């Protein structure tokens, strides 16, 4: 078995695509129409284009429990997933300058530095830097 795709539920696929590519810097990999309002939409890390794809899936709009789960995580401030970066402070500075809201500012926690931001599509995402 291999990990090829992880999914992130998003409330608006087009808005998510703009955020994940233009703000975070991911690259669009696959964009296929599935139905009238849904696409098979994946992005990849610019530094690891052969790495796992992130599927921006519109589950919250089609399956009520998914929407409830996503909202519960979001309201508790719990990250839906996390991305590794070389320098959390530098990413925080860059994203904050773009207007991205952070619920946890860069802080050290043991052997990692973390920060948590709002992806504007219904999720908290954690940035992690190994110290």
């Amino acid at each position, binding site marked *: 078995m291999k990990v090829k795709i992880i999914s992130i539920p998003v409330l608006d696929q087009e808005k998510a695509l703009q955020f994940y590519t233009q703000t975070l810097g991911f690259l669009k990999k696959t964009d296929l129409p599935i139905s009238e309002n849904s696409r098979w939409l994946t992005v990849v890390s610019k530094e690891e284009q052969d790495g796992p794809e992130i599927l921006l899936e519109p589950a919250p709009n089609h399956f009520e429990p998914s929407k409830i789960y996503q909202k519960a995580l979001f309201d508790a401030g*719990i990250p839906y997933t996390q991305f590794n970066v070389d320098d959390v402070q530098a990413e925080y500075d860059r994203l904050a300058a773009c207007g991205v809201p952070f619920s*946890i500012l860069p*802080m050290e926690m043991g052997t990692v530095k*973390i920060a948590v931001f709002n992806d504007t599509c219904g999720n908290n995402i954690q940035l992690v830097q190994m110290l």
Partner: protein
Amino acid sequence: MTHYHKEIIRIQRACYANQTQLNTVIGARNYINCHFQDTVSLDVLSRTLFMSKFHLLRLFRRYYGQTPKQYLIEKRLEHAKHLLATGHSASDTCYQIGFESPSAFSTLFTSRFGISPASFQKRAIFTK
């Protein structure tokens, strides 16, 4: 403050209160990051960080979930991928990342990534 933020602070106080230990293991990891192409052993780390090698081994495993040697190998193999992708031969890569035996390097690389160093290099160049 969110529930998650409170939990982070609680875990930080419960698990990461000993800053001296943290500084030591972070120092060990940084040393490996800077010297992975050289000979790095537990003896070298222990002398550099003024700590018993057994204590250092225990602390590193506790805070990073792997031994210094496991981390060193991981670091070397990641750098190997970079070297191979930029055109270095398998044997050149082997010596540059601090391995002494090309066959041991090839076996380890293949077992870790499911592809031999030579095949990885060809694929990387072909994909460019």
